[in-house]
């Protein structure tokens, strides 16, 4: 059962990731990234990380990808164009990636002592996780909340107005005026 689920969702994962690269329209890429993240959530569950599986669905497949699709639609992003830079990036990129994958795979396959995962392994409960998180790692947790606050302020400051005059399309300009008027 574990093997079947592993292969099924590994297939979804890799298909989604490859589809992300093949699609030329950003919204299709975003949707295939959602497939990747949701299948990763199932793989986390297979590894016994129940809290992370739920957080993966809520935070990644939910919040972050909604943000992505929202920006794709807001900016009306069209098909990407092939340029000279993309040809040279392909010429360098494919060999480099093959080398990276080869090195990592060699290291993984030669390493000893890695165990196996099965469905009867038991689950790391949210209670165990929060016990460590809120006792030993309380300070990093609180610092992260400050980070989130700063990120919110930064995002609002960056995206709200901007003093450079827009020479974009009208929609962006009209949107800007409405947000500035609020």
């Amino acid at each position, binding site marked *: 059962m574990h093997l079947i689920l592993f292969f099924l969702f590994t297939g979804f994962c890799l298909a989604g990731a490859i589809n992300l690269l093949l699609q030329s329209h950003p919204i299709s*890429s975003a949707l295939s990234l959602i497939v990747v993240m949701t299948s990763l959530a199932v793989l986390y569950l297979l590894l016994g990380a129940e809290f992370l599986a739920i957080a993966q669905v809520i935070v990644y497949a939910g919040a*972050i990808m909604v943000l992505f699709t929202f920006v794709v639609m807001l*900016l009306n*992003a069209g098909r990407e164009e092939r340029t000279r830079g993309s040809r040279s990036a392909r010429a360098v990129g494919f060999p480099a990636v093959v080398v990276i994958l080869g090195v990592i795979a060699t290291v993984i396959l030669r390493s000893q002592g890695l*165990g196996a995962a099965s469905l009867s392994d038991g689950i790391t409960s949210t209670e165990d996780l929060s016990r460590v998180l809120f006792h030993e790692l309380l300070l990093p947790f609180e610092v992260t909340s400050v980070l989130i606050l700063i*990120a919110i302020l930064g995002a609002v400051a960056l995206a709200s107005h901007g003093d450079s005059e827009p020479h974009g399309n009208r929609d962006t300009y009209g949107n800007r005026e409405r947000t500035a008027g609020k």
Partner: protein
Amino acid sequence: MSSFFPQEVPLSWYLLLSAALFSLGVLGFLIKRNLITVFMSIELMLNAVNLSFVTFAHQWHAVKGQIFVFFVMMVAAAEAAVGLAIIIAVFRARATLAVDRIDLMKL
């Protein structure tokens, strides 16, 4: 029967999947020409690293590996918010999302 159809999956397969996803993310980062898709490739790489964190947490029965993934998720959320705001600002200034045309800081 059980040797023919094993009930458990070696953890190295999870690590190989993580490596494959990371490589696809690097490839996307290099060959995609749209700013938003490049950013999505970065998210793909973060997810691949998260998978190997969870795998090692399972291997060593350590909860802290999963907590690290939790922190990576929070940082990724903050990064996505700021990064997409920067993309909106760039689009407003340059009216394009093609990475080849955003070359103001090139010598």
